[in-house]
């Protein structure tokens, strides 16, 4: 139990996917202009991440390895991720069409979000159990969501700030992302891996 909690803490705070591994920066900058959008994107990504982490572990452990066809790992993982993304896309289009419209291409792009495939591939190497794989998935998703939500809050506040013209928009967003990473450095060493 403790190891699962530690895995989640480590992936959320210490080895945050976005701020220390620099995975998933594209949705971070693209879908964070509004708080509501960022929450939607976070939920979608967390869902896909968890599903992908669990699914890929199962497929790898019980299908690919026993049958000795690990060379199909990449393609089968992508199939799983694509299916999860497609499912998310369908749900979102139906239940909140406006959010779907705003996120636009970013939802299908979760498929190519390096964070998702990254977690799936890393899991194969480091997970010793199914639960650990799920924990990595949840942790990765929560870490992404945390950064995403905090970031969108700051960006909304920046709408009212007197930012110098050349720095408006993406420039100040990148500076802010750097500041966030600086803050997260403080968590270094919390969990020994």
């Amino acid at each position: 139990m403790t190891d699962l909690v530690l895995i989640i803490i480590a992936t959320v705070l210490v080895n945050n996917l976005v701020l220390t591994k620099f995975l998933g920066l594209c949705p971070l900058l693209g879908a964070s202009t509004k708080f509501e959008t960022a929450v939607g994107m976070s939920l979608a990504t967390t869902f896909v991440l968890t599903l992908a982490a669990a699914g890929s572990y199962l497929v790898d452990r019980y299908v690919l390895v026993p049958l000795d066809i690990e060379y199909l790992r990449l393609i089968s993982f992508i199939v799983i991720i694509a299916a999860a993304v497609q499912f998310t896309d369908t749900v979102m289009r139906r239940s909140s069409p406006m959010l779907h419209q705003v996120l636009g291409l970013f939802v299908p792009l979760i498929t190519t979000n390096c964070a998702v495939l990254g977690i799936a591939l890393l899991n194969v190497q480091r997970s010793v159990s199914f639960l650990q794989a799920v924990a990595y998935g949840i942790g990765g998703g929560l870490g992404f969501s945390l950064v995403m939500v905090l970031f969108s809050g700051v960006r909304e506040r920046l709408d009212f700030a007197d930012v110098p013209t050349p720095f408006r928009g993406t420039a100040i967003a990148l500076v802010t992302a750097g500041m966030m990473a600086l803050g997260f450095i403080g968590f270094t060493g919390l969990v020994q891996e």
Partner: protein
Amino acid sequence: MKFANNAAPHWRGAESVPVLMRQVLYALVPALIGLVWFFGSGIILNILVAAVVALGCEALVLRIRKRPVGLFISDYSALVTAVLLAMSLPPLTPWWVTATGTVFAIVFAKHLYGGLGHNVFNPAMAGYAVLLVSFPEDMAAWPLPRGVAPDQQALSLLTVLQYWATGAMPIDVSVDAFTAATPLNSVKGQLGMMRTMQEIVGGPLFGNIAGRGWEWINTATALGGGWLLYRRIIRWQIPTAMLIGLLVPALVLYIVDPATHPSPAFHLLSGGTMLGVFFIATDPVSAAASNRGRLIYGLGIGIITYVVRNWGAYPDGIAFAVLLMNLAVPLIDRYTRPRIYGHGT
């Protein structure tokens, strides 16, 4: 007869921003005296470098942005940032380290976000964190406090100046003889070597409650903070909440296992606790807006500080805690708006 046409209200009762900022500077004097007494005059050099660089950067940016230079230079906010950063640095700091931190604080953390009132992150702490990451060795080297050893010799002013200018001691002087880890760092290192707190605090670096000298510096800082509270320049919410956030976990773990956890009193009077509680966390621009929000904000800073001190790799966590909670401010503000009069019960 013609009369002036003004919009209501026609009265204003508040002290202006420059006056408030000046009071903050005055309130830092006791802490400064403490630092100079225990660690020598190096801190003055830090302040001079930081102040000159801060005002220079401020003037430059304001001129480039075509803002009224005189008005904003005289608001003292850049000076407060500079002094807070300089007082957080070790008294033996080469000038370029201080200057780098100050440039980052004023240009990146303050003016890229729009200057006074618009900065999301506490400029002084942003500058400090950058230095902590970029110059870890310089940031860890504190001179020995006065009174560690009976035959202790103070560094000569010339030596200090040389180190300040070049980053190196004269050939016949060894840096290691004059510097030591801070108490927080020392505790962290020795606990890692499986020594108990009782053994650690018996060492020469430690005084009655916390680090030698540090306990007095923190007390002096709190004195200035108390004056700010009394003058109502800062309000009680953030300091109180931050202390609770820091001391309650400290107390719980101290009760559970006093051998491996410093006492709450130790935390209270160590490192930058008091500077953080009264002068850094209370910076209103980067803090939460409502009273309730400020309680959460202060609590967060306290807790994260404790987490970093206790489990993290860095000896003190105030800078990181402040930056992280700055980040959470928009979110806190969103969920802590006070109920408006006449809407619900």
